[in-house]
């Protein structure tokens, strides 16, 4: 299933609030660093699980982003020129992510599972292509039950919250081999 809501703007994108199949992501696109450039954000739920926002790299611009923790951003290079999305600042890469060289229509995805503000830039055009991605904590779920009149003992909080959403991961083989009867290998 692919849930899609497209926001797009020219110099500035408005704040949005969208619902995915299994969750909800707040996204605010404050506009590309280069305000004359055009940028797009697209929300998708590609795997029936994680929310995903698609951010186009276009017209030599990176976009400032604000997302909830757990959101995946997919950057796609729409320019004819090669770009990167690289965490950090020119001369001070953090290593949090680095797409490597993205040619036209190539994409790179990264999931923000920790809150914080992450500067990022294009290593090929560091002077002009800089932006920031801010991951905010997921808001608490709304109450689902009305409290009883008589207070009851509360359960011990669990140390680690379980995520009920079904997530998916693809794993390539780390080893494979053929066993040949009556052969050398």
């Amino acid at each position, binding site marked *: 299933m692919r849930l899609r809501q497209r926001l797009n703007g020219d110099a500035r994108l408005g704040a949005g609030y969208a619902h995915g199949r299994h969750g909800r992501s707040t996204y605010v696109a404050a506009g590309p660093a280069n305000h004359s450039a055009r940028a797009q954000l697209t929300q998708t739920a590609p795997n029936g*699980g*994680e929310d995903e926002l698609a951010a186009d790299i276009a017209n030599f611009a990176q976009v400032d982003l604000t997302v909830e923790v*757990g959101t*995946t951003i*997919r950057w*796609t290079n729409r320019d004819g020129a090669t770009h990167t999305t690289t965490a950090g600042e020119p001369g001070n890469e953090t290593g*949090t*992510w680095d797409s490597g060289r993205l040619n036209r*229509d*190539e*994409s*790179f*995805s*990264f*999931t*923000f*599972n*920790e809150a914080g503000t992450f500067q990022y830039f294009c290593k090929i055009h560091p002077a002009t292509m800089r932006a920031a991605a801010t991951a905010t904590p997921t808001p608490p779920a709304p109450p689902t039950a009305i409290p009883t009149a008589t207070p009851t003992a509360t359960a011990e909080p669990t140390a*680690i*919250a*379980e*995520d*009920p*959403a*079904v*997530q*998916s*991961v*693809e*794993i*390539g*083989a*780390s*080893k*494979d*081999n*053929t*066993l*040949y*009867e*009556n*052969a*050398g*290998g």
Partner: protein
Amino acid sequence: MYVGRTNGGSLRRALFQFDVAGSLPPGATVVSATLKIRVTKTRAEKHTLVLHRVLVGWGEGSSTPSTSGGGGGGPAADGDATWLHTFFHTETWSSACGDFDHEASAETSVAGNPSWRWTSEQMAADIQQWLDDPASNYGWILVGNESANQTTKRFATRENSDEGHRPLLTVEYTGRRGPSGASRSYLR
């Protein structure tokens, strides 16, 4: 990789291993598992290929098939799994090519090209075990129709030049989120 019995009557079996513990967050609950592999050469007849959980460690050396098409294999290199060895030439299977759970994890009837999938609750249970106890992860062995000649099917390996043809395990799970970057991927 080859699975089945060749024209000359020799058996072929394929081994796969996946880094489950390095790909899923600890404490996750596995919901489903699907293995997709791609046929690259076969006769048209359909044969059932059965996946079993391997019970001992095995190696992948640097050997490459020396015969045309790779069906005849080639000289084993140090560390290779072979019909007799788990690690050539120092460790052997307890019985020739036999240290796997004889209870099937999954089976699929495979005909011609292109890709085929194995999925089952037992495969999900195998993955869960490998996540909870990574030391027990020795992967799966794929066993074909060994009752007749000319049943061999060739599959793309993880070294295939086309990334989309390589063996791929898809796992659905619930539970803790992984560290940042766990979902990193390239898409085109």
